[in-house]
């Protein structure tokens, strides 16, 4: 299987304003993303995540190195049509409704009108945007804009998705929906490269992670590789404190170290889902039923 993204010694430098020194946005890095995998790009603000995505989307020319996307140049129009790109920030042309915006994107991707409309309808339904009707996308909430942008990125049925902060500003249901869609795209053979600050989502979703800092690749690998520490934990349920103390003493007697005994908390999202999920799921079910 050919790599969806193949970059060698890719480097980006921005000229400094006036007499200021040039700014290194990306130090030379190698990157390979195969189809059917989700790769997360982590890093603090200004670490080069967006620059990397822009280079791969064909919007930024590297000063050094080579990059191949879906077997062609990232700037080639034929390649760009096969790549779904969701940039960070608001949508362009805020005075269009979501269907109008997707119709425009479909036309520019060269989709036949009927097919573009059918795909747009499916995506708007799936992303819970049909209720917005003829409202201008400029008036949408951040979450709705994000979902619209994702719909636009998915409209061309891309083989590669480049997503810049796809879940920022989304409520937990929205994030879950996006992650679910990305898993489906992965299962369909699509490669996904996503930059995110949401570590938990990256952990839950990505097969591989790159960590950038100051434009330099600090770490890369699968989650298992990166998160492995050599420690193993024993999770117990149903014992009282006294029984736990006895077990700890036995562990020490065998040469082990007891780091601590503490109650394991439930994941916050699980709590959120338990408290609010039933009602919201009911609403969504109603809307999906109406839209279908």
């Amino acid at each position, binding site marked *: 299987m050919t790599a969806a993204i193949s970059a060698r010694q890719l480097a980006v430098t*921005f*000229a400094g304003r006036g007499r200021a020194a040039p700014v290194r*946005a990306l130090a030379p890095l190698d990157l390979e993303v195969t189809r059917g995998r989700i790769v997360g790009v982590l890093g603090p603000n200004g670490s080069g995540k967006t*620059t990397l995505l*822009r280079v791969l*989307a*064909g*919007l*930024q*020319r590297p000063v050094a190195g080579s990059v191949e996307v879906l077997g062609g140049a990232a700037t080639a*129009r034929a390649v*760009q049509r096969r790549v779904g*790109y969701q*940039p960070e*920030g*608001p*949508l*362009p*042309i805020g*005075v*269009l409704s979501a*269907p*109008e915006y997707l*119709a*425009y*994107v*479909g*036309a*520019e*991707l060269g989709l036949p*009108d009927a097919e*573009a*409309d059918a795909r*747009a*309808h499916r995506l708007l339904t799936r992303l819970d945007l049909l209720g917005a009707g003829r409202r201008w996308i400029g008036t949408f909430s951040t979450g709705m804009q994000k979902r619209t942008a994702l719909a*636009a990125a998915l409209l061309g049925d891309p083989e590669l998705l480049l997503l810049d902060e796809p879940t920022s500003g989304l409520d937990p249901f929205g994030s879950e929906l996006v992650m679910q869609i990305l898993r489906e795209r992965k299962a369909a053979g699509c490669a996904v490269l996503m930059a995110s600050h949401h570590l938990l989502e990256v952990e839950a979703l990505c097969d591989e992670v790159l960590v950038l800092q100051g434009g330099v690749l600090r770490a890369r690998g699968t989650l298992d590789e990166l998160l492995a520490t050599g420690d193993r934990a024993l999770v117990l349920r149903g014992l009282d404190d006294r029984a736990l103390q006895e077990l700890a003493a036995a562990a020490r007697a065998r040469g082990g170290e007891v780091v601590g005994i503490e109650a394991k908390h439930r994941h916050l999202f699980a709590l959120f889902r338990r408290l609010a999920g039933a009602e919201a799921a009911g609403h969504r079910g109603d809307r999906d039923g109406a839209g279908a």
Partner: protein
Amino acid sequence: MRIGGRGPFGLVLRRCLAAVWLPTLLAALAGLVLQRAAPPQLADAAAATAAVSSPWLMLPLLVAAIGAAVTAVRFWPPFAAQRPGAETLRRLQRGPLAGNGATIAGALTAQLALTSLVLGALAGSFGAPAARAHVEPRPAREGLLLPGTAPLTFTAADGPVCRTLLLRPHAGLPDGPITATRLEVRADGELLTTAPLACVEDRQLLRFDFAPRSVHELTITATAGTVPLWLPRGAVVLVGDAERPWPLNAALVALIGLVPTFAALALALLGGRVAALPTVTTVVVAILFVSIAGELGPLPAAVRALLRGQWLPASPVFPASIPSLLVGSLAMILSMSWPAGSRR
């Protein structure tokens, strides 16, 4: 769900029409009211030419032009630097103009539709006369006209059928007491009028009608008087006999009205490489205001030609549009060759 006009052209066209039709209509109504409310204080109102109504007709044209241009600039992110989403569009759009040309075409089409309607509706009610070709015959030689000097000869190519002659001679200082210089005008050797033609003031308009006839050569002779007259280019104008359809004349004016908007939008596209939206919008409004209200562009001359009954294809208004067209085209070429977004 069918979405018509999916590309930038259709989107901008629809957006401009939706945003500008009401302001244009209100401006047209205001122009109509102002024209009616402030007529010239002439004893015979009909004597005033319709051309004095040009400010009131210009008002809706100015509103439509500014409205369409500003709507397009605000609609399409590449018109200004650092607009969110500009990169998305740049990536989606194809061709050397990257959708910018289609956007400008959409705005211009919206303006054309609105101004054609306005001109069609208002020009008649402002008393625009029937359109006739105004032809400037070429002088065989330049010289002063005085009794005793050789007559001046003017030739009209193709010998158009005419019915009116307009003379606006420049007058010099007389050598002695002032006596109006009397003129005799012959067309192809035949006397055009027996009515007295006398001129004593500089750029005094002499106008007379004659039986429609083909004119190849005009001969003007000074028969009496002391005021030397000089007839430079444009001082002799023949008015054709054939009436031309004034709605077509109005549509041509609307077409000429697109030239300043094209230049303004092209310059905005260029300026938008470095300037933010408020700056670009201000520049567009200023360019249109100065070129339309300030008469630097071709539109005011075209409007007056329409209201004076001049058939535009035969007038010098079209050549006057060329500088604005060149400026706009140059700006478009420069903006095409200046790639946007080369740095963050």
